[in-house]
């Protein structure tokens, strides 16, 4: 299945791109996706454990299943306000 990833702030700088599309096995979890992203972009490693994820406005965790067509937002520590 295809999912889309969008990076922000430090994560965008670590990945070196605003976003990308990936092909994942059916039944892949967010955790599977994140490991794949870490392998592809070693500069993301400092964010491992600090990063959070949203699919639309839904907060997702590593064990959560992804679905075809999901857009996953990769969110480093936030500093709004």
């Amino acid at each position: 299945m295809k999912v889309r990833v969008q990076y922000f702030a430090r994560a965008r700088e670590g990945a070196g791109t605003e976003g990308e599309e990936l092909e994942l096995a059916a039944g892949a979890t967010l955790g599977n996706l994140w490991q794949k992203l870490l392998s592809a972009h070693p500069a993301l490693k400092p964010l491992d454990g600090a990063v959070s994820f949203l699919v639309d406005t839904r907060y997702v965790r590593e064990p959560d299943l992804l679905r075809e067509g999901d857009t996953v937002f990769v969110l480093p520590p936030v500093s709004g306000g």
Partner: protein
Amino acid sequence: MAILTRDVLDEAALRAKVEAPNCGAITSFSGVVRNHNEGRKVLRIEYEAAPPTLALLTELEKKTKEKFPVHQVFIAHRVGTLQVGEASVVIAVSSEHRGESFQACRWAIDTLKHTIPIWKKEYFEDGESDWVEGCKMHSLNENEEEHSHEPSGKSLHRHGR
């Protein structure tokens, strides 16, 4: 419904949105770009927001109203380039009595800081720039007890109480 905008925040107009004849108290908070941070001179700040931000700010307004006996809660956040002295966020709360509007306004800004996907990058006098160290983002619906308000990573080193 919250506002997310690149325009200058009109704080009086935003505050007026929570007025109501049954309310005796309005507390409002503005976060403003400071000319310094951690000993360095700041010239301007760039704010960036992920697409879910507007919906999450609106959800934060709703949560605040659920949690506190207040009449109306309004949140506006600015993105883009902000100069020193400009407001990045305005939160206004109206209530019958003053205690609730203070508590709700304070809770809303504290909660915003670790539940809303916004980032700021400071531009310093010496030409350098850097992302402000933030907090790991939590879900607004998460049990509040689970929140760590410490900079991300540090919680690994916590032990005892």
